[in-house]
């Protein structure tokens, strides 16, 4: 299976843009239905991303709530230079980063590693827990930037263009960061065959 087949099916671009503009207009007008629609469309993704960034569901819900409040407060400054949804995710990612930094300061942990990287909580899932847990632990060792790009691309199904808008980087930088992230993950999760062979010898 090549990566393209793993991507979620994309909706027609015009329909997506129309929906995005309608959402932005509704939220700008202070219409609660606009926010409700945004939550219905993106709430689960937002919470999932926040949980993967913060490591637990409670903090993730707080981050999503804070993100909605920030959207409400700053919607007047939204100029439509990016899509409304990617703008919202940008706020979410920054909120999660702030929450992590705040958590580090509050807990005053002794270990830098434990402070910097979230400890993933146990989640019930259909997939083999060892693989998922191993991936979560490996993700925790990535740089913040690599983790953001990997989660947005591989988990949430954002395109590199959307990731560029969300993280304020170029599309090429997003591709390169993803490549580096996956290379690091691969080394951590599955050492290359050549290394195995060398070890065996």
């Amino acid at each position: 299976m090549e990566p393209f087949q793993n991507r979620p099916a994309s909706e027609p671009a015009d329909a997506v843009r129309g929906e995005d503009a309608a959402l932005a207009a509704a939220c700008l007008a202070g219409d609660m239905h606009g926010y409700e629609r945004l939550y219905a469309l993106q709430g689960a993704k937002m919470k999932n991303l926040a949980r993967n960034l913060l490591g637990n569901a409670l903090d993730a819900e707080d981050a999503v709530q804070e993100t909605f409040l920030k959207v409400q407060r700053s919607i007047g400054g939204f100029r439509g230079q990016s899509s409304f949804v990617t703008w919202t995710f940008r706020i979410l990612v920054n909120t999660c980063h702030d929450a992590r930094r705040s958590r580090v300061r509050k807990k005053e942990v002794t270990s830098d590693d434990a402070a910097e990287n979230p400890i993933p909580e146990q989640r019930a899932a259909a997939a083999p827990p060892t693989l998922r847990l191993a991936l979560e632990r490996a993700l925790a060792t990535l740089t913040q930037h690599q983790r953001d790009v990997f989660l947005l691309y591989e988990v949430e199904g954002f395109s590199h263009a959307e990731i560029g808008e969300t993280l304020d980087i170029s599309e090429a930088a997003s591709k390169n960061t993803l490549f580096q992230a996956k290379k690091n993950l691969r080394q951590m999760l599955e050492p290359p065959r050549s290394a195995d062979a060398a070890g065996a010898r």
Partner: protein
Amino acid sequence: MNAMNDANPKTKVNCHDRERIFEDGSRDQWTALEAHALTCIECAEEIRAWKSLSVAATELRDYSDDPSLWPRIHRSLLEEAAKIEQSKSRWTWESIRRSFFVSWQTAAAAAVVLVLVVSAAFYHRYNLTALKTPVAAPSGDLLRNNALAEVERTQSDYMHAIDKLAADAKPQLDNPGTPLLANYREKLQVLDSAIDDLRAQAGQNPSNAHLRYQLLAMYQEKQRTLEEVLEVKR
């Protein structure tokens, strides 16, 4: 390791292209790489491991809904909206108060400037008038009319007094016995003519002080001339 792959003649790749394709490969390049991997064990293993990361990543998707989250967000949005509305209304009242304050200040400043301009203009005009007229010009129409009436009255009395002198000197002037008296008569005729002209001009422009002073000077000259005629008689 195969150096080249012949499965896809349009896009030929080898093991060295693998990482580049992993990073930013097109669909055709991926197809070509997979075709190449059919005969390359190393590339096949690398592709498997690479794709397994994407497969594993899907296991990080947990889109289960928490029914309590949206009501919580909704409530906080409503509270925030109420706060924003409250701050807006406070801002509006504050801005009105501030703008009123600013308007009041502006109006006061404008009034002060107006008073200064009017005072300066009045002072300037007053000074000009004072330079032209040694007598202080009363301000206001009422005062001006009163002053003019007094001038007219004084002038009239003065004229009557001079007419009495003229009546005393009239016999000598009508029959001048000497060239001196003849000269006085001619001078008085010229003065009367000038007085008539000035009175006509003063009638058209009663508040012209300069005409009044000229007229007064003529009367004084006529008075002096008549006194001299009477001196000659004695």
